[in-house]
């Protein structure tokens, strides 16, 4: 945080008014650097070094009772894949990410359509509806679901009364509900941006040429919103894969994911190298997802 002080100093050092039009490269570079230094310092210490440490620790050795020992080994990674609990957790993490992204898309699309195409008076309240969960702590939202999904509350009682053998709390169903609720706003905002950017005249033209509303939607509106859909899909997928609070509280230990497994390693076992290996796998999965996204979007742009 001490870097903050340096920001003002070097800016003054720029030679003044001799080179209004195009300051020479070196000076520009130095000014830019001086302005960036505080941010770079904080990010180096608080972001790059921690991520690097996780990567390094994931190749360390761990002995129960002794703790972490410095090494270069992939034994933690092979331990992850040979543990039935954690390889199962990896699969479940993907599954939860996929379910969350798909359901979020299905719920957000009508909402985004209503905000961008619906009556004017509905726009502000609906936008507030989308924004609100984003600004409420995930802990509070999840707590609400824990009350609502418990066996004494009416949703579970209704299911029981109807004889539907579905349990809500401490199951994958409950965790999925919580994840959709938490990450849906990302999808909704992405779709709102995409739908608002569509040139309305393309829709009007199709309608004036006699297309039904249904057909206008599927041939004109929907295809133009696909990039936003992809962006929202990747965002909700990645976010729900790295969720901690929701699977921890709504899973109650019975729905282990990669992240709850990391948390358990740190809280109870203190096997840091193993937790680090799980973390790097999660990071790799996220980066792979982003890579696929940019490949798909790039391909769509090239046509």
């Amino acid at each position: 945080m001490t870097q903050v002080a340096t920001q003002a100093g070097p800016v003054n050092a720029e030679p003044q008014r001799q080179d209004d039009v195009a300051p020479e490269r070196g000076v520009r570079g130095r000014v830019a650097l001086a302005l960036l230094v505080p941010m770079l310092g904080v990010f180096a210490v608080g972001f790059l070094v921690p991520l690097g440490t996780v990567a390094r620790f994931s190749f360390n050795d761990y002995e129960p009772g002794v703790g972490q020992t410095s090494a270069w080994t992939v034994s933690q990674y092979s331990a992850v894949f040979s543990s039935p609990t954690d390889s199962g957790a990896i699969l479940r993490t993907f599954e939860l990410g996929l379910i969350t992204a798909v359901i979020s898309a299905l719920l957000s699309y009508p909402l985004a359509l209503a905000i961008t195409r619906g009556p004017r008076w509905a726009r502000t309240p609906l936008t507030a509806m989308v924004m609100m969960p984003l600004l409420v702590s995930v802990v509070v939202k999840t707590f609400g679901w824990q009350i609502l999904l418990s066996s004494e509350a009416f949703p579970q009682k209704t299911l029981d009364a109807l004889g539907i053998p579905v349990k809500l709390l401490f199951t994958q169903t409950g965790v999925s509900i919580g994840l959709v609720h938490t990450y849906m706003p990302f999808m909704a905002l992405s779709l709102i941006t995409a739908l608002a950017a569509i040139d309305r005249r393309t829709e009007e033209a199709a309608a004036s040429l006699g297309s039904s509303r249904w057909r206008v939607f599927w041939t004109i509106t929907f295809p133009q919103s696909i990039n936003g859909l992809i962006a929202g899909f990747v965002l909700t997928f990645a976010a729900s894969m790295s969720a901690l609070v929701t699977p921890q509280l709504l899973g109650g230990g019975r729905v282990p994911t990669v992240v709850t497994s990391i948390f358990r390693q740190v809280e109870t076992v203190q096997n840091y190298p193993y937790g680090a290996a799980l973390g790097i796998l999660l990071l790799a999965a996220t980066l792979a997802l982003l890579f696929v996204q940019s490949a798909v979007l790039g391909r769509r742009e090239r046509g």
Partner: protein
Amino acid sequence: MADTHTTVATDMRPPTPRKRRPFSTGSVVMGVVVTLICLFIAAPLVVVALASVTETGYLTFPPQGFSMRWYQQILDTPGFVDAFVTSLQLAAVTTVISVLICVPAAYAINRYSSRTTRSLEQVFLSPLILPAVVLGLGLLFVLSRTGWSGTFEGGVLAHVIIASPFVIRAVLAGMRRIDPRLEEASRSLGAGPLRTFFRVVVPSIGGSIVSGAVFAFVVSFDEAVVTLFITGPDFVTLPVAIFTYVQYSADPTVAAASTVLVAMSLVMVCLVMWLGSGEERREQKRNRP
């Protein structure tokens, strides 16, 4: 939805005053669907608020009776009060530092645009998308080595990393809207770079800085994941305190504390939307011929 547009084509008469069309089946279905989705979004928040006024000594839904004693109980639970104060302080310090480091950085990224600054922008935004757990794990490793784990200062470092992407994004968006000729004009009229920055750039992106700061505050105030890794007996934030209570002994006091958080968030939503609409109005005014 969009019913007015479908009628445009076939009738070529001059536009008649728009009559209220009877609701079509399509828009009724849409209205019902959207209402249900909104109920889904609001449900857990409403449930928490309702559960906090129960008369029973345990959590139950629907609540039984009406009592405000759990709100009184918050004040008698030192854990919550201390955590609330810690969260407020943490969010305030985080916001100030994030703004101080992000505004110059965003200015450099925008003004001295090159391949390097563009990739730096991606790095600064990456905490938004990269798994927070990995950051939490890394910060735990690094901070515990230096004895900073479980301290307020360690928390500030973590929260600045998490909050600054929101500030960078808001400020950059604001800067990209300013006409670069304004700065050139100021410089050619003899103002130095610092004076230009504070008299021309900062006033025109004031709204963006404020909305970035509001986001930073809210994000820091609500953050739970990274904080859970670096929390300690002397450093507990309100979301971490609520998490711990919910996991082990949820009672109506937790619901009351959570409701206070929801109420704060509601105020923040209104603030953000109000700031946003102000920005939009100014934009429209500027673009008017």
